């Protein structure tokens, strides 16, 4: 259970104490509840939640008897000491448990049959286990209209609330959005937002996970299933490169819910999820989900069965020189099979490439000791170099805030303003001049005992000066560790497999390829879309799109094979912290769709070259055997928590350097997780979507004769963007325009070069 903190029984500062007559040990300073739980004694709790910070001792459920101390003590706030004598089951302690539970239930409506928490409710469980069995409270209970919408995604039933303050502490201390508060006093206390408005925050869903009663429940999951109707599958989120560990709830073959795991992965997300990872899955049911293969012919589109679709794909590929383009989120298995087909003679010498940021030139930085997200907790200095972690890798925000709560200093530099800048001292640098900002960080890093440097992959890759500066900084401070804020979901995994970002575009342009397969990749909506469009306009061969959602490419393709989403298929993703983790299916998906790896294997069979593997697991084994970064890795080793991959030879491709100068404007693209195409199509997240805008300094806007809300177009030497509204933000560096990557309709991708997140642009008002 996530309710109790893990206890390291192998630590060297163990103290021994007596618990209910037994002699047990735990590290000094461990809270008694955790030490007891590790020793197999459950002390009931409600308000205690180690992830929320220091205990507050509000619910009084964990009262225990400690010899030599007057009265009863709260075990959640009492650290264990040597020779302490604790009794959790003495008559005095039992009476206190009875008393607190009777009082907690006094005003509780006991409407378990209609409560979504029923069956997985800590209050229910602990009442059965520790409660008095019956109540003497005969007065009428308090009543509220039930439920009310705390937000469009969270239902609040105030009658059920036991005032444990967990949600308030999450909002105030963990997410620090400062929205939730307790209103009124005493028995009339109720949870509300400070302003009375909806609780709109990016991590709001976590309060439904930590609520120990049915007061805060998820609206999309309302009355959908009971704990005995469902199966839970541990999986991993593929919405961003962080790779948060999730649990998928399935009922009748459909995905009904995503939650953090009961046993959180402390090295990654610590059980917290962003709202997109939690509720974004409904796009798998959105209207533009592809559900059957489409063969595009001169007479019109023809929908066929998946078997016929695969056969059609094989016949389109037969005898042709093939190019395979992989998206940034394809799994190791899919990429491994693609590479295998290209080399084992199935698709003779196919060119395999990927979309995404190439950061081979960052290899010297990556060579320094790597950190996991969990290591940020213990850092005394967090350095953020470039990037926009709060928007691009949301869960990083909670980690940095936690480190700050523990007393770490937060510093950094970068061109883009972001939410974490309010936590410390940040210097604004011009694009391409990150090294200038880093000079000011050197002293702090070398003086810190445990500094962690977070650096943005895209920003550094196009700033060679910054790579050199950061490499030098890390080399000069022996304690420093680094952590990449990645750009692509499986960018690290694909790079470790040796899939390059170049080659295919050039091959198509040079007419060296006769057929193209796009696997979860849409070059027409990616950076450099205009260039890709031009290349595909001149391309006469067949294009096969293996995709989950309709997009520009599936409209253009000659054959569309519907694939499964990350919630429906098996696979392995490597997070930005080099952690290989497994996707496990939590839903069946459309009948006429199949996983990408399955489609590729089926095509190989049709081409007369049955590969040596039939399942995702055997494809994984086959793939890892031939790539040094994955040597020795097995699915067992990855388990549920993942494993960090080894080093791999650096990809020598690096993007062009983008350096700002006074005469030019630089566009830097930020993929706001809540502003992308996926969020826009989610019904559950409809109120969380951030609108696409061009953010720039007021002075920049003024120089361009632009007012706020004017629409403007960005023009670079490769193409132009669609018109987007201007938003003035004094925190943005002058001469910089921050644009939304991956927004609906991919507005700015046209102005970017292929695999670049930055471009030199000029601006035109429309």
């Amino acid at each position, binding site marked *: 259970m996530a309710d109790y903190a893990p206890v390291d029984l192998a630590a060297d500062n163990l103290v021994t104490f007596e618990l209910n007559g037994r002699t047990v040990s735990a590290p000094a300073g461990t809270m008694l509840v955790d030490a007891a739980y590790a020793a197999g004694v459950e002390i009931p709790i409600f308000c205690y939640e180690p992830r929320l910070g220091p205990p507050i001792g509000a619910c009084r459920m964990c009262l225990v008897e400690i010899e030599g101390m007057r009265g009863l003590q709260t075990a959640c706030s009492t650290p264990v000491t040597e020779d302490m004598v604790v009794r959790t089951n003495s008559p005095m302690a039992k009476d206190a448990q009875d008393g607190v539970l009777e009082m907690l239930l006094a005003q509780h409506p006991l409407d378990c*049959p209609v409560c979504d928490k029923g069956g997985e409710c800590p209050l229910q469980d602990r009442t059965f286990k520790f409660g008095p069995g019956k109540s003497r409270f005969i007065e009428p209970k308090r009543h509220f209209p039930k439920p009310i919408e705390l937000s469009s995604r969270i239902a609040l039933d105030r009658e059920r609330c036991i005032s444990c303050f967990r949600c308030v502490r999450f909002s105030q201390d963990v997410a620090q959005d400062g929205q939730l508060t307790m209103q009124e006093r005493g028995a009339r206390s109720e949870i509300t937002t400070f302003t009375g408005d909806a609780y709109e925050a990016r991590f709001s869903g976590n309060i439904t996970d930590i609520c120990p009663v049915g007061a805060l429940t998820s609206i999309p999951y309302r009355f959908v299933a009971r704990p005995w109707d469902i199966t839970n599958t541990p999986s991993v989120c593929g919405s961003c490169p962080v790779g948060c560990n999730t649990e998928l709830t399935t009922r009748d073959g459909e995905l009904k819910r995503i939650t953090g795991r009961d046993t959180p992965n402390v090295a990654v997300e610590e059980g917290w999820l962003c709202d997109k990872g939690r509720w974004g899955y409904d796009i798998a049911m959105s209207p533009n989900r592809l559900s059957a293969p489409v063969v595009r012919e001169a007479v019109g589109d023809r929908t066929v069965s998946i078997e016929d679709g695969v056969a059609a794909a094989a016949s389109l590929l037969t005898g042709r020189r093939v190019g395979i383009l992989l998206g940034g989120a394809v799994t190791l298995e899919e990429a491994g099979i693609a590479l295998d087909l290209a080399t084992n003679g199935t698709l003779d010498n196919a060119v395999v490439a990927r979309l995404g940021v190439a950061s081979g030139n960052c290899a010297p930085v990556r060579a320094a000791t790597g950190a996991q997200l969990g290591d940020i907790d213990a850092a005394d200095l967090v350095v953020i170099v470039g990037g926009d972690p709060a928007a691009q890798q949301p869960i990083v925000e909670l980690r940095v805030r936690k480190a700050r709560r523990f007393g770490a200093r937060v510093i950094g530099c970068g061109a883009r303003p972001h939410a974490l800048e309010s936590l410390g001292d940040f210097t604004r640098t011009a694009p391409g001049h990150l090294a200038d900002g880093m000079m000011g960080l050197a002293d702090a890093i070398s003086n810190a005992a445990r500094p962690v440097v977070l650096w943005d992959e895209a920003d550094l890759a196009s700033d060679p000066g910054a790579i050199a500066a950061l490499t030098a900084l890390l080399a000069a401070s022996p304690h420093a560790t680094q952590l990449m804020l990645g750009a692509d979901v499986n960018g690290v995994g694909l790079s470790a497999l040796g899939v390059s970002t170049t080659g295919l575009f050039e091959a198509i342009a040079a007419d060296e390829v006769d057929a193209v397969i796009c696997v979860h990749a849409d070059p027409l909506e990616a950076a450099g879309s205009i260039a890709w469009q031009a290349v595909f306009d001149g391309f006469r061969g067949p294009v096969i799109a293996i995709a989950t959602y309709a997009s520009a490419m599936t409209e253009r393709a000659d054959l569309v094979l519907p694939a499964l989403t990350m919630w429906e298929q098996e696979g392995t993703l490597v997070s930005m912290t080099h952690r290989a983790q497994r996707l496990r299916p939590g839903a069946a998906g459309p009948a006429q769709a199949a996983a990408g790896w399955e489609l590729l294997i089926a095509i190989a069979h049709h081409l007369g070259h049955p590969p040596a593997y039939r399942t995702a697991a055997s494809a994984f084994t086959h793939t890892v055997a031939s790539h040094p970064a994955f040597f020795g890795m097995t699915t067992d080793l990855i388990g549920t928590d993942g494993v960090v991959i080894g080093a791999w030879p650096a990809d020598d491709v690096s993007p062009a350097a983008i350096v700002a100068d006074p005469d030019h404007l630089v566009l830097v693209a930020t993929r706001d997780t809540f502003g992308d195409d996926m969020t826009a199509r989610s019904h559950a997240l409809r109120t969380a979507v951030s609108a696409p805008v061009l953010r720039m300094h007021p002075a920049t806007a003024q120089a361009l004769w632009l007012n706020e809300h004017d629409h403007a177009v960005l023009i670079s030497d490769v193409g132009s963007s669609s018109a987007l509204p201007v938003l003035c933000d004094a925190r943005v560096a002058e001469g910089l325009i921050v644009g939304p990557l991956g927004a609906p309709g991919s507005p700015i991708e046209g102005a970017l070069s292929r695999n670049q997140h930055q471009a030199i642009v000029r601006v035109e008002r429309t």
Partner: protein
Amino acid sequence: MSVQDQIKGFGITFRTMLQKPLTLGYPEVKTPVFPRFRGRHQLWRYDNGLEKCVGCSLCVAACPADCIRVVAEENTQEHRVSAGERYARIYEINMSRCIFCGYCEVACPFDAITLEHSYELSERERDLMVYTKDMLLTPAPKQPPLRTEGQRV
């Protein structure tokens, strides 16, 4: 075996020969059942017409044969089906799996489901053995006669 034993044995035979036969002419004549007999299920409504079942699925949890399926939904102002916040949009019992143990009745917090006396549950197709909520809300058309304790058939 003595002669006495033989007389004893034949005595039973001859006594029984003189009694009326126990065989009933089913289906014209129905076997009467005791009041506590557990037969076909019925779902109940309150007097105001609202269903007692709130779709809590506790019967599903209790069912040892896994023959009940409940899919709940929220009542709205315009569409109020049950008295609680939620109601059972789907309530199905697969009668071919049911073992008539009555646990569902015991588990129900609202007395919404009871096992009644009807035992004539045969269909020509397996699919028809899945009884839907509408069927269960309607009492069985033919009720067997009741039998009191000690009453001979």
